[in-house]
């Protein structure tokens, strides 16, 4: 398996409280990997460790290694010599609640990531912004309101705007934290279709509450419980022939 991210012995703390225990996991390139598990099992924390966002919380701590085998970066992202800001530029993140910048226009919400990455050519920015909005299946809906505030869109549109923002600067990995949990079924299905389309170009790691969603779109699924990785397998295998009893009980709805 060609892994773009190899997580080794990852531990994480919220202040004094340990929330991740010795996670070892390989994330396959150009596939969708879903992370499922009951609330509070550490799924989101795990995701936020992959782009070094977790450590920004006051008192938070991370120990372990995450090897990133990217085009512009190869090595352990937790190496003390590595600049976390740089790492975050190789990864895009989409959050649970849509969070477009309300003081920026729809257009600038997408363009801002390019500006951070040092792209100054206006023509090039314009091209990438339009292309990203198109890829996020949003362009047709917003082409007349590109200069309105990002907050003026509907919830589902806002989330697709956030996806456009996250893919605009061409990251290699997309980290998604329950991106559809705040959306209605139609918006959810639009985003799911979009993700299947996007995995041709990006590696996607998606945290989801919704097992059906994992079953529908993920190539690989990881089941976490109480801060530990219980099982990781191709999605079909995990759902049809789980090896661990906890996994089986969770996916059959006996607890969770």
């Amino acid at each position, binding site marked *: 398996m060609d892994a773009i991210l190899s997580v080794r012995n990852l531990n994480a703390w919220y202040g004094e409280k340990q929330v991740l225990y010795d996670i070892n996991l390989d994330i396959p390139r150009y596939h969708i990997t879903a992370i499922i598990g009951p609330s509070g099992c550490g799924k989101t924390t795990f995701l936020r460790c992959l782009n070094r966002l977790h450590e920004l919380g006051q008192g938070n701590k991370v120990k372990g290694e995450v090897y990133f085998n990217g085009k512009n970066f190869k090595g352990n992202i937790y190496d003390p010599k590595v600049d976390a800001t*740089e790492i975050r530029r190789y990864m*895009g*993140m989409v*959050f649970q609640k849509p*969070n477009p*910048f*309300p003081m920026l226009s729809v257009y600038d919400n997408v363009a801002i*990531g390019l500006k951070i990455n040092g792209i100054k050519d206006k023509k090039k920015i314009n091209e990438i912004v339009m292309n990203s909005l198109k890829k996020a299946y949003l362009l047709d809906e917003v082409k007349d309101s590109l200069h309105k505030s990002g907050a003026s869109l509907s919830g589902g549109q806002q989330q697709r705007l956030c996806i456009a923002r996250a893919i605009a600067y061409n990251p290699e990995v997309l980290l998604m934290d329950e991106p559809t949990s705040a959306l209605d079924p139609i918006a959810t299905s639009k985003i799911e279709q979009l993700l299947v389309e996007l995995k041709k170009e990006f590696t996607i790691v998606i945290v989801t509450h919704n097992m059906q969603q994992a079953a529908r779109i993920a190539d690989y699924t990881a089941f976490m419980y109480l801060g530990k990785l219980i099982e990781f397998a191709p999605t079909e295998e995990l759902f049809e022939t789980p090896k661990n009893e906890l996994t089986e009980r969770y996916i059959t709805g006996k607890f969770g």
Partner: protein
Amino acid sequence: MRIPSLRRFYDLIFVSICVIAFILAMIPLAWILIEIIINGISAFSIQLLTNLPRPAGVPGGGIANYIQGTIILVAIASLIGFPFGLFIGVFLSEFKEHKLVPIVRFFVDVFAEFPSIVIGIFVYVILVRGEIFELFGVQSICIGAICLGPMGFSALAGSISLALLMIPIVSKSVEESLNLVPVSIKEAALALGMSRWRTVFSISISYARTGILLAYILALSRIAGEAAPLLLTVLGSYYWFSGLFDRIGALPLAIFTYGISPFEDLRAQAWVASLLLILAILFLNIGLKILIRRRFAW
């Protein structure tokens, strides 16, 4: 369901107390306003806005230099005070885990409650009389051709004392505005690979810009009407602004000196000065607020 009549009665009593308290509190406020407007308008003339003061009894005197002085003092105070206030506010809000934050917050809180005359006497001693130089055992400090000595009563000393008043007001309101920026917005910026400083200055401040501008207006209207620190630092002047190190006039000083003068015509001018000051503050607080809300809302 029917509300028991006793409860209705209590409700009525409580509401009546609130209304009476409101009316009683409004009487003096309305009175002041009406008094200033009536006296101000009856003494108003265009020459007041264009002419320099003349001695009592000589017709044609104006208060133009005081208007100019207040604008200059407030502008320089903003140039000095606003950046300091902004940076302190950013520090208090965005670097909460820093060891110095509790100390800075303590000083800001104390300073915000400081009587303005104490700030005035401080600037008077340190800068106007120049005791800061005595600390170093010299009369003045020269860097090349520029020599700094005791400032004397001057526009600059006055602006500095107003800036000192402004800093805690601005920094507290900036801190509060920045605290209202949702974490999710900051995280969105950080996840894009923005550095922490850039997130603060291009995302948080831009998100909180309405609050920050309102903080600035609040501080402006507070310092525009201050007389006490100016009495100790600029002393006032009957002439146009002639330099940062010269004395300068200001509307609150005109109100003070003319208001207690024995001459009828000067007292009338004090009313006009009051009216102008109140109009300026009302304009800042109502007009600009509406404008900012419209212009910067999203």
